């Protein structure tokens, strides 16, 4: 209970998730403290520590094709990870309360299979499942799938919306408390507890009976992580949580207003959707100490070869002859070579203009290639003493730059231990973050309402009230 702030009861509650370190250069693998990104012990460590700190959820990203650079598998960052949902099912065995959020692509999976996997995870975790819907739809990734089935960019959210629609129909097709197990009559299920689904759409044709009981949450919590206008509209229509990249205060406020402003058009309340940017935290004894540490981490994240590879993405050509500690290349970008890096989005519409601007900025500041890349790939993040970081996180939430954060460690698996030990207690003390879990499901942690059964008259009556009554 807060004794610090008299207005604590009215404080917005912060929601915090942890992101298992990803396969990109945020994750520092060269540090001696960096452990395996594959061994289950790493997943267990982060999930258990986050649960001890009473965080909302544990989050896994996904990518279905190894990234390539200059026609070869990119070898400078962490490469390789296990399959999202089996890892979460295993983490469910070593935790009790923390939510389990998995990123799963909607283009390269079929709705019937996804619906039963998420229903299963929800059942096996006692109501802790969440699905981060991502829509990568490129032909490069499609080469790993028999169905091919990659989509024109414009259709990626159309298919995502239909996949979710079908999944919801399947989850809704089982009544609450469907298992009767009446040994005397031999009725295993309540009569009529399962209704057939019949969906015929542009991207999916699914009909028949669903195999899997409805999970404790009804539907898993739905996350969305896309930034385009289509992505934001999809989130406003469909998602419970947006995983955003806008972690700085001003950009966060703009994004927050934009997405929350889209909710009314879908008949949804402003707090029906939580906006959680990814962020990092670096702690120090004082601000200077923290900034020095943050700089050391940035240097680890951007070694010389990584800086060159980053520039090559924009330049569209081989720049290995250039010294990362020297000035920017004087050659012009090859604007036609747009696929030098695959499995990752290229950033600039006009590479020559960007290259010119970067050259000018580097010259003006006397920056090397490496220094420029460090500056250009900075993502903000919280740097300071535990008190400063706690204040800052709270300010972002209380002043509507976000509803909380997804914390991304740079070390596997212990990179957030300090944050759990030193920052979270300060947030709890001021009454902005739970000291104990109030509920058992992720929906309850996030303060989200139970899902309705939509407007479908076929299944609207499958609730416990009507079945029991």
């Amino acid at each position: 209970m807060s004794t610090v702030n008299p207005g604590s009861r009215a404080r917005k509650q912060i929601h915090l998730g942890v992101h298992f370190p990803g396969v990109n250069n945020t994750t520092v693998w060269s540090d001696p403290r960096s452990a395996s990104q594959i061994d289950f012990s790493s997943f267990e460590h982060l999930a258990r520590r986050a649960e001890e700190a009473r965080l909302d959820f544990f989050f896994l990203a996904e990518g279905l094709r190894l990234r390539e650079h200059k026609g070869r598998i990119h070898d400078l960052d962490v490469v390789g990870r296990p399959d999202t949902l089996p890892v979460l099912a295993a983490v469910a065995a070593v935790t009790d309360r923390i939510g389990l959020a998995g990123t799963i692509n909607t283009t390269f999976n079929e709705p019937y299979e996804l619906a039963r996997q998420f229903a299963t995870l929800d059942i096996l975790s006692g109501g802790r499942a969440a699905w981060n819907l991502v829509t990568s739809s490129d032909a490069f990734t499609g080469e790993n799938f028999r169905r091919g089935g990659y989509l024109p960019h414009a259709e990626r959210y159309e298919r995502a919306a239909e996949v979710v629609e079908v999944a919801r129909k399947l989850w809704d097709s089982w009544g609450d408390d469907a298992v009767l197990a009446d040994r005397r009559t031999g009725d295993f299920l309540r009569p009529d507890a399962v209704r057939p689904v019949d969906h015929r759409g542009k991207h999916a044709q699914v009909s028949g009976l669903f195999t899997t009981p409805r999970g404790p949450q009804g539907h898993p919590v739905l996350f969305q992580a896309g930034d385009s206008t289509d992505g934001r509209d999809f989130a406003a229509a469909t998602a419970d949580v947006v995983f955003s990249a806008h972690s700085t205060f001003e950009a966060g406020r703009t994004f927050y207003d934009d997405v929350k402003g889209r909710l009314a058009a879908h008949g949804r309340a402003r707090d029906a959707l939580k906006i959680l940017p990814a962020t990092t935290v670096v702690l120090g004894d004082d601000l200077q100490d923290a900034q020095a540490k943050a700089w050391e981490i940035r240097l680890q994240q951007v070694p010389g070869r990584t800086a060159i590879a980053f520039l090559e993405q924009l330049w569209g050509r081989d720049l290995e002859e250039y010294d990362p500690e020297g000035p920017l290349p004087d050659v012009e970008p090859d604007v036609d070579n747009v696929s030098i890096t695959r499995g990752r989005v290229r950033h600039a519409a006009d590479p020559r203009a960007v290259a010119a601007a970067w050259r000018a900025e580097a010259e003006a500041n006397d920056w090397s290639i490496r220094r420029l890349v460090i500056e250009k790939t900075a993502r903000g993040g919280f740097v300071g003493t535990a008190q400063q970081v706690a204040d800052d996180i709270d300010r972002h939430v209380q002043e509507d730059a976000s509803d909380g954060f997804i914390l991304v460690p740079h070390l596997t698996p212990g990179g957030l231990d300090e944050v759990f030990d030193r920052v979270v207690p300060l947030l709890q003390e001021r009454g902005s973050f739970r000291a104990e879990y109030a509920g058992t499901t992720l929906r309850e942690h996030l303060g989200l309402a139970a899902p309705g059964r939509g407007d479908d008259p076929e299944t609207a009556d499958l609730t416990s009230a009507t079945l029991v009554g």
Partner: protein
Amino acid sequence: MVFPYPDDHTAPRSVHLGIDLTDGGAHPAAWRAVGSQSQRLFDAGRLLELVTTAQRGLLDLVTFDDGFALQPRGRGAVQGRLDAALVASRLAPRSAGIGLVPTIDTTHTEPFHVSKAIATIDHVSAGRAGWQVSWSTGAPEAAAFGRKGPQGEADAVAEADEAVEVVTRLWDSWEDDAEIRDASTGRFIDREKLHYIDHEGIRFAVKGPSITPRSPQGQPPVVVSATSDEALALAARRADVVRVSAVDAGQAAAVRARIRDAAAAAGRDPDTVRVLVDTYVVIGADRASAQARLDLLEDLDGITWDTDSLTHVGTARDLAATVEEWTEGGSADGFHLRPSSLSTDLDAIVDQVVPLLQSAEIFRREYPGTTLRQTLGLERPANRFATAPVARETA
């Protein structure tokens, strides 16, 4: 009788015993028996209790059936399934020794997804995953996916064959030592040790490599039920463990010989294939009480239990005797036990049958290692893509 494995002269050879943990037991009315915990059928706690029991009995592996069709209503059968791969994964951190073998369909799934799911269960269980390959010929399964119509057995098995090829190649698409974390050159992996599988088959093309590094067993054991001639041929080509149906020792010996011959014809060493006879189990203190248990289930069900393989209705001692007789006679490498009722027969197998087999010195007294392949007496296979070291690029 004790005889050594060809590749390990210290470990005594053991009969192999798998157990089917599907639903409440193999008999459709099992859930209606007293003590069946039928309300907890989908409860992770119940599944964990079952695996813990099986592991106490040092059994080789547990299997979980799965499929994309809801079991038909009627005759009081259980309806509803959890995704078997996620069940296996949920059980992995809380078990040790025992193999975890979920069923995954090949007709309506993506080999790329299947490959990383099983590899991941192998990672989280430190080497105890297997894959029971299945295929579907039904209209309901096809309608659940809506991408193609129902297929005949031969066609579905041919597709499964290609899927197993792709899955097993993806399991090898990372060499064991591909992750180098070489700070001096800044390279996390040696990309010479990652391989495109470049599968361009009759039915599909898959590029690779997997996103998941090679798992502790390298190749988790593949389990196939030889339920048709086509399936038997698939099993002989690709399975490490083959489940067969047989009602007497002679029939079992004949089907085992057929599989071993077909495996040899496919260029495999038949001693690397374990043939397990599906065995339905109803155990009682004496024959009459076992029969009474079955009568009760049949009364509840309204019809005679129609099994397709060896069905033991009797004492633990008689079952142990059958196991001993069949294995020593060369009719089987082991048995896949299908308890009529998990709540009763599993305990009897573990607490009564296993000690008898141990006394007869035909069943292990401890797990020989930590992985399922070790338990099955199978070597960890070399990576098909690994080559002798070649001059590497300097960069």
